């Protein structure tokens, strides 16, 4: 019980800190930025630890128990590769930011920087998850059911032999599961969003550019998908029954073809005058694309490097399918707006082909809103994956992904809050980071 109030206070403090910091936007001295950033991160970390650990005080006296500060210290130490990578990224980016285009401008916006830091924190955590995790994410250790944070393992005093954030209801390490869960989430959400964008852009550009019957048909189909209640769609698509019918595989076969088509058309339209370069690029895209395609869609990669379990493929396809129509609508709207611009008209009089105009004139000018939406959509997809976990759909058993761990932990929230709160805090901070990043990007791209 005691854990909840400081957590709430902490959350409000974090909001206030963000608000205060962003006030200094005009000043824009990096030193200030970095100091403030470090402050916020430290505060965030403190909130996380404090909330999680306070209720651990009522622990079983027989077990060796880490104090609050020790847990925080050990977690920070375990996360060292993340800190190092973050520091390196920020140092390099700040140094070269004038040469880095929109990405560099991000570092002029404190909001964007905080968002970027939060997102990169989880990206690096996912990358270095093997180094960070203290235990196997699915190993169960007898005696550690629902253990409070900082509990030592029953029979050792060795290094890493603590459940830093406690044990879950099946005696697995919450900290390691949270870290490994980042990998699961960050493997699906951005990739699914990227695919949705490929599909949405490939269809949205011609729909907006040509209009007419093509537009009418595509818009109707997009609205059809959008009119589907998302959860009903998931219930119908993300079940083992459907896997057996092969439907997700065929949907994947169609959806996953779009990136390959998109890239081939992209190269072809750009380098139509330089056949050598075009053939090389298109060839490389085709070979690599179809190789990956065969692995992902049909699980038939000859080299066995690319592959997705049927369950995962199912979830992936469903998420792409739900997101693509919205991207389509945005792209179509932007194209409608941009096709009447002077530079498009100039291109038309120059005799450029429509494909070139769409991909190399309209698309680059629409990138600002698209990038912003991309960030927001990754966040939305992350939430959507959690929703799937909430309804117990498409979840691989024992998977440490945040949605299903939140769902498992929520039932015991009043007695063992650490189980649900660790993944919930992780999910919220990632989505928050993506939202802030999108805001920063929007702000900076508007200044262009």
């Amino acid at each position, binding site marked *: 019980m005691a854990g909840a109030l400081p957590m709430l206070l902490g959350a409000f403090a974090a909001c206030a800190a963000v608000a205060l910091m962003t006030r200094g936007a005009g000043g824009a001295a990096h030193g200030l930025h970095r100091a403030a950033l470090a402050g916020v991160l430290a505060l965030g970390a403190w909130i996380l630890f404090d909330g999680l650990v306070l209720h651990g005080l009522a622990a079983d006296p027989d077990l060796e128990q880490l104090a609050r500060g020790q847990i925080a210290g050990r977690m920070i130490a375990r996360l060292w590769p993340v800190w190092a990578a973050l520091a390196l990224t920020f140092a390099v980016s700040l140094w070269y930011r004038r040469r880095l285009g929109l990405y560099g401008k991000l570092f002029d916006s404190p909001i964007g920087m905080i968002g970027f830091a939060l997102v990169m924190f989880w990206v690096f955590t996912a990358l270095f998850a093997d180094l960070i995790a203290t235990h196997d994410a699915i190993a169960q250790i*007898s005696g550690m059911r629902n253990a409070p944070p900082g509990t030592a393992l029953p029979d050792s005093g060795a290094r890493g032999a603590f459940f830093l954030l406690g044990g879950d209801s*099946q005696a697995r390490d919450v900290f390691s599961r949270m870290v490994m869960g980042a990998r699961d989430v960050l493997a699906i959400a951005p990739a699914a969003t990227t695919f949705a964008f490929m599909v949405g852009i490939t269809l949205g550009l011609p729909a907006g550019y040509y209009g007419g019957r093509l537009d009418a048909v595509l818009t109707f189909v997009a609205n059809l998908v959008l009119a589907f209640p998302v959860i009903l769609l998931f219930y119908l698509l993300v079940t083992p029954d459907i896997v057996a019918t092969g439907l997700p595989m065929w949907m994947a076969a169609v959806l996953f073809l779009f990136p390959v088509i998109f890239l081939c058309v992209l190269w072809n339209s750009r380098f139509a005058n330089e056949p050598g370069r075009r053939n090389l690029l298109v060839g490389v895209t085709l070979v690599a694309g179809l190789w990956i395609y065969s692995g992902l869609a049909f699980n038939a990669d000859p080299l066995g490097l690319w592959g997705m379990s049927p369950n995962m493929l199912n979830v992936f396809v469903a998420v792409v399918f739900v997101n693509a129509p919205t991207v389509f609508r945005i792209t179509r709207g932007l194209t409608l707006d941009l096709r009447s611009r002077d530079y498009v008209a100039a291109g038309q009089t120059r005799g450029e082909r429509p494909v070139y105009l769409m991909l190399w004139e309209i698309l680059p000018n629409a990138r600002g809103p698209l990038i912003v939406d991309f960030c927001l959509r990754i966040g939305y997809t992350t939430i959507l994956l959690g929703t799937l976990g909430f309804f117990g759909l498409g979840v691989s058993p024992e998977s440490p992904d945040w949605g299903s761990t939140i769902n498992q932990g929520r039932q015991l929230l009043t007695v*063992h809050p650490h189980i649900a709160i660790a993944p919930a805090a992780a999910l919220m901070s990632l989505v928050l980071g993506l939202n802030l990043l999108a805001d920063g990007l929007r702000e900076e791209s508007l200044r262009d």
Partner: protein
Amino acid sequence: MRTITEHQPAPHPAALRYAAEYRDGRLGRREFLTRATALGMGAGAACGLIGVSARGALAQDHGAGTHGGTLRIQMDLKAMKEPRRFDWSELANFCRGWLEYLVEYNRDGTLRGMLLEDWEASDDASTYTLHLRRGVRWNNGDPFIAEDVAHNFALWCDESVAGNSMATRMTPLIDPATGRLRAGAVEILDDHTLQLHLATPSVAIIADISDYPAAVVHRSFNGGDPVENPLGTGPFLPEHYDTGLRGALVRNAGHDWWGSDAGAYLDRIEFVDLGTDPSSWLAAAEGGEIDMLYQTTGDFIDLFDAIGMSRSETVTAATLAVRFNQDSPPFDARDVRRAIQMAVDNGVVLELGYDDRGAPGENHHVAPLHPEYADIGPPRHDPEAAREMLASAGHGDTVFELISLDDSWQSASCDAVAAQMRDAGMRVERAILPGATFWNDWMAFPFSATEWNMRPLGVQVLALAYRTDGAWNETAFSNAEFDALLAEANSLADVDARRAVMARLQEILRDEGVLIQPYWRAVFRHFRPHVRNAGIHPTFEMHLYKYWLES
């Protein structure tokens, strides 16, 4: 012999073991009494075994109740069907308001006549004489007579009705040629006496007619929703039944119920379906919207304790069978099955999968609770030997897939089994399937876990699940010696004689590595402290007429 209730004068061997555990402090008094009485011991005798006064220990379950009040119960309300097709105890529990049973299986493991005054079996368990209770009336005024009972047997024996689960229990009375009640199998001697003539001996028939699909309906009943035309002998009447939402029973003031001098205390019983998520039940209990739960499981037992509800507990012969299908390689090899069995410590599965709430199982699916249980000692646990055995069987690198239902304790238990197999160097993957998908193929999965509810007698489960032609034989186990011994056991009305045969049956099951049977579940129920006589029943029956409220 008079009855088949297996009520033993000498203490059951398991009861003596529990008494020893009680003296060592490993078992609480309450728990001991629940277990000992569930073994069929009288409460007084059980108390005597550990030297405490019966009066204090059992005060709660005795004493006449007070009349009046409304009880609100959380329970799933599934789509209603006719009684013989019941596939969930919940359906029967609602109908228990007005439909009664010939025989009632009690919390203490005894069988008590309800609509039967009593019954007799021949020594070879092939002829039963049933004596009906006199003075029982249907709530439309008709008297309850032998013709009613004969009509019920005819309904139960009709194999052509899809999902008629009584038919699988009534095999000795069914004519295999027609799939209906065999002519002459039920003989009406007079208005209150019938005789059953079994084609093959069965000691289980009385226990079978106490099971929840055996609710007794009127002689005019011929299928359909019992709620629409609530013609029964019981003291309540349904007010409404909204599937998935709520239902209510009210006391039938116009009906003279045969047992009214000691029962049917409540004025009104309301049922609420709050879905399958126990946290919703907890929230409803905290908000004071329900008085009693159907069942509490896992970590929620402590949570309901913490909000001040009373707990009732009983050990059952309900279990989880982590079984191999011997038709699917590599589980056709006995060594593979034995190796996996040896890799798993049942005690650890009980701890991690079921929070230590129960007793460890012995991999043969006969429970200490069953009267004919033979103690053949705990199974062997040896991960090292298991690894070697598996390797020498040529499956050291085989990846096994363990399938379970998406139910929290079942999947947790399977996760624990999988984790232990990994500890022994085996390669395991887990798959969790939603209910509908799981039950589509539950008998055919190569390696999966199935929940088994308890049956009063050990032979009942063995006949259903492990006999070559067992209706629910999910292991594809087929062993001539086993089948012969089981038939022998089924014809031995004397428990001690049967126990000797059971010992051999249990050994065969275990040596053949048929299943990992990690534990016997204890089951729990919580209710508010003013609810009386509502302790959980091992097969989840709700004897509504016994419940009362303290004002």
